[in-house]
């Protein structure tokens, strides 16, 4: 197990993600989203878009496709069942669309504890670019809590 403060500043390898039309339609359908720019290619093109529009929070879903997404939890000796999503933020620079090759670069930017270590917080930031141009920046705060786990 590593000391979690050693994670601060660690950059993870950049990776490429492409949103697929079928998955965007599936995502919209689950949410009850009826705006056809998210589901209907002809409508998206009519609206002036090159392809289906990626909705605001789907960028987080692309970030979840990073290699070994829970590797750091293993390094910390944390079970996935202990983890809660504490905060999530997005800053947007441009729209992104199905089929585009997006490059994601995550890094761990902070770690802190509350309640005498009963709650631990791990902050990850991810820059998303397309052909070198900024698309968005994400910030994720994971909360690690103490739980009595039975196998």
């Amino acid at each position, binding site marked *: 197990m590593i000391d979690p403060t050693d994670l601060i500043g660690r950059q993870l390898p950049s990776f490429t993600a492409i949103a697929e039309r079928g998955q965007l339609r599936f*995502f919209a359908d*689950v*949410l009850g989203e009826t705006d056809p720019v998210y589901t209907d290619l002809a409508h998206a093109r009519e609206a*002036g878009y090159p392809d289906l529009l990626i*909705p605001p*929070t789907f960028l987080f879903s692309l970030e979840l496709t990073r290699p070994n997404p829970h590797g750091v939890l293993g390094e910390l000796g944390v079970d996935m069942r202990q983890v809660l999503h504490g905060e*999530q*933020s997005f800053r*947007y620079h441009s729209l992104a669309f199905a089929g585009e090759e997006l490059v994601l670069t995550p890094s761990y930017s902070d770690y802190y504890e509350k309640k005498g270590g009963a709650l631990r917080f791990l902050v990850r930031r991810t820059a998303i670019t397309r052909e070198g141009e900024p698309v968005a920046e994400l910030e994720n705060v994971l909360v690690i809590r103490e739980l009595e786990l039975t196998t």
Partner: protein
Amino acid sequence: MTTMLQELTVGAELPPLALPPISRTTLALFAGASNDHNPIHIDSDVAHSAGLDDVFAHGMLSMAYLARFVTSTARQWDLRSYRVRFAAITPLHGRPTCTGRVAAIEERGGERQADLDLTVTLADGTVTLRGTATVALHNDQGDLP
């Protein structure tokens, strides 16, 4: 509908969005659609092993519903930032409602922006999520960022 925000003033409330109760089916489908496969949201055996009564909803499901709420009011290309804090777990069968209010309208970086205070609340009054979206007000026609 999408230009509605242009007409709102500080303090105005957005029309709330009431969502269907969170079912196991919704959680299973959202796990697949969102790439979040954490079994604590879809497998009650795993939830029990962590001392929980049952599975509970992904925080990002509420954040995605809330984004749908925002983009039904403002165009997505006007969305500058969107952040939330997850305040409480959404249990199975919880009925979330998205609400929003114009908290501020300010000139920033050469454009008029509105800050929306956003909340997701369950039928019993529990606030599960609080957030803010900042939306540009000046882009009237089709100019993509």
